[in-house]
């Protein structure tokens, strides 16, 4: 009897492997291979002038990261970018979610409007805004002019450029936050709110003492997910500012891209990529553990 069960289980497992094999193969080819190649490369002196893995340098590429002249600047810009976009997205997302949670009419229309940016490719979003915000030809400055406001050099002025990419990122990603928070809000039990009404809690107190604590898991997941995505931001920088002007929008991922394809040093860029990956991986593992602890 036991033997029969085991052979059955073995057959099930083999069948399962068979079903997942194509997906696994694709993943290995497009994810695991480039990843392995990057890790491998990070231990060699490997440049675009010398595309051969023949000079093993050990951890030199890693130890030399700290010597990168402008890396500190890129880390600081990335930190500011992540902080600003995630915090503002959370505040707007929460406000929108709270408002939509009370809406009963035209809910689908609001959802459609809310989801529209999320359906667009980041490259399209960046290109769109680059045109809208063009200092000479963009419609934004034309409209501002109509209101008697001087045109803003959105992407040419360092300070303005930083906030421009932050705002474009927010425009693109805030709905993600809003949708996640809205899903959380609509799943909250109704009863504690009624109990709070009987207890005499005002709307603000209810939000602070009931909604926020009950939403904590959802908030944590939404913020962590956005943190991970924001840390990897590349497309809008590549399209809109190329890290400039100066280093005003030079996020880490773009910095790595530059050191690989402009600095031509693939070995060192690979090392930096691996470090960034470990950072993101750390956050992801924390998120995964947190979500498991909720279950």
């Amino acid at each position, binding site marked *: 009897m036991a033997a029969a069960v085991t052979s059955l289980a073995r057959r099930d497992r083999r069948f399962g492997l068979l079903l997942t094999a194509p997906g696994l193969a694709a993943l290995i080819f497009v994810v695991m291979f480039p990843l392995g190649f990057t890790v491998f490369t990070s231990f060699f002196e490997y440049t675009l002038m010398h595309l051969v893995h023949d000079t093993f340098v050990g951890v030199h590429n890693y130890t030399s990261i700290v010597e990168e002249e402008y890396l500190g600047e890129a880390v600081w810009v990335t930190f500011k970018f992540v902080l600003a976009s995630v915090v503002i997205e959370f505040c707007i997302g929460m406000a929108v979610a709270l408002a939509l949670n009370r809406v009963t009419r035209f809910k689908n229309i609001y959802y459609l409007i809310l989801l529209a940016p999320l359906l667009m490719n980041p490259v399209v979003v960046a290109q769109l805004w680059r045109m809208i915000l063009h200092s000479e030809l963009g419609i934004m400055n034309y409209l501002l002019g109509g209101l008697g406001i001087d045109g803003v050099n959105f992407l040419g002025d360092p300070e303005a450029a930083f906030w421009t990419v932050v705002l474009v990122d927010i425009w693109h990603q805030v709905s993600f936050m809003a949708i996640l928070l809205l899903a959380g809000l609509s799943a909250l039990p109704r009863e*504690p709110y009624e*109990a*709070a*009404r*009987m*207890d*005499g*809690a005002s709307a603000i107190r209810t939000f602070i*003492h*009931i909604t926020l604590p009950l939403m904590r898991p959802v908030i944590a997941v939404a913020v962590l997910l956005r943190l991970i995505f924001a840390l990897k931001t590349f497309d809008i920088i590549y399209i809109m500012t190329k890290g400039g002007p100066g280093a005003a929008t030079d996020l880490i991922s773009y910095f790595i891209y530059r050191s690989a394809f402009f600095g031509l040093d693939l070995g060192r860029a690979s090392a930096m990529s691996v470090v960034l990956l470990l950072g993101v991986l750390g956050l992801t593992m924390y998120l995964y553990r947190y979500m498991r602890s909720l279950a």
Partner: protein
Amino acid sequence: MARIVLENVGKLYGPVVAVEGVNLDIADGEFMVLLGPSGCGKSTTLRMIAGLEEISSGTCSIDGRVVNDVDPAERDLAIVFQNYALYPHMSVADNLAFGLKLRGLPRADIEARIATTARMLGIGELLARKPRQLSGGQQQRVALGRALVRQPKAFLLDEPLSNLDAKLRAGMRTELIKLHQQLGATIVHVTHDQVEAMTMGQRICIMRDGRIVQVGAPLEVYRNPVDTFVAGFLASPPMNLLDARIVANGQGLAVEVGGVALPVPPERTGVLAQWRDRPVVFGIRPEDLYTTAEGGGARVAVDTAVVAVEALGPEVVLVAALPDKREVSARLGRSFTARVAAPQRLYADMAAMHLFDPETRRALPRG
């Protein structure tokens, strides 16, 4: 302490009438039970008293003050919800303290009140725990504690016992009765469980389809149901209700039911004279059917056949078929036994019979 008066209260959800024309005067310190099947509007009525639902028409007043537009918090009532509605992220102590903190009570007072309430309900050990660490019965106590600690004018209980298992429920029932005696507070208790209603309420208000059908003391409602709905809803097994006919029987009258003519006791023939040769609904409670002719009342023999014998321990419920195959239930002593399909002679106490108008379903006057 509060007197709660509902005058012509109604509730509409769009075009749907949830509650209509409810008039109810709940005396100060009274234990009132709102009883009815699910969807009858009893919970909605309670929630309108609490202020959690707006009142569409009519007025609700507490101690003479109309509270239709008064915020729930200012009505000074406490509600215990069916699923307890504890704040899941707060400890038991914080759950109890939350409402008091919001009312700005000094910390020392809050602690004293929590200690008293915890002692009263035996939840002192649980104060540091979170609701998810409590059993259903313990959560129930905490929910009750959260209401008690506020020392409100009245308590509104929305099916608070329905999520407990049978044994706990019986225990909590007794405790709630004791608590009411101890506090002397007004309690409005919503339930669909007629045993709860009978045992706990000083008065029962039976509702159906958003309207009040009958209000009265439990035994009064049990003895004199105003219509077939109340007759069939109260007590388990419910009253046997059978289509019948009033016929002449020599000098007097008889109820012709299931192919048998059951003579009406002389004291009830007077008012029934006008119902002669007309259809009626004949009702007899299972406890008014006996296996012997002796022992009070006006017992009349009916020959039946045994359909099922349900031995419940303290009693036996016999399901028996009349000659025309319609079934009746009888509550008999625990020693009763019978084989299925065997003939069984039962004796109906005709002094205890109920008669209803088959069209209006209302009880005929008992004369």
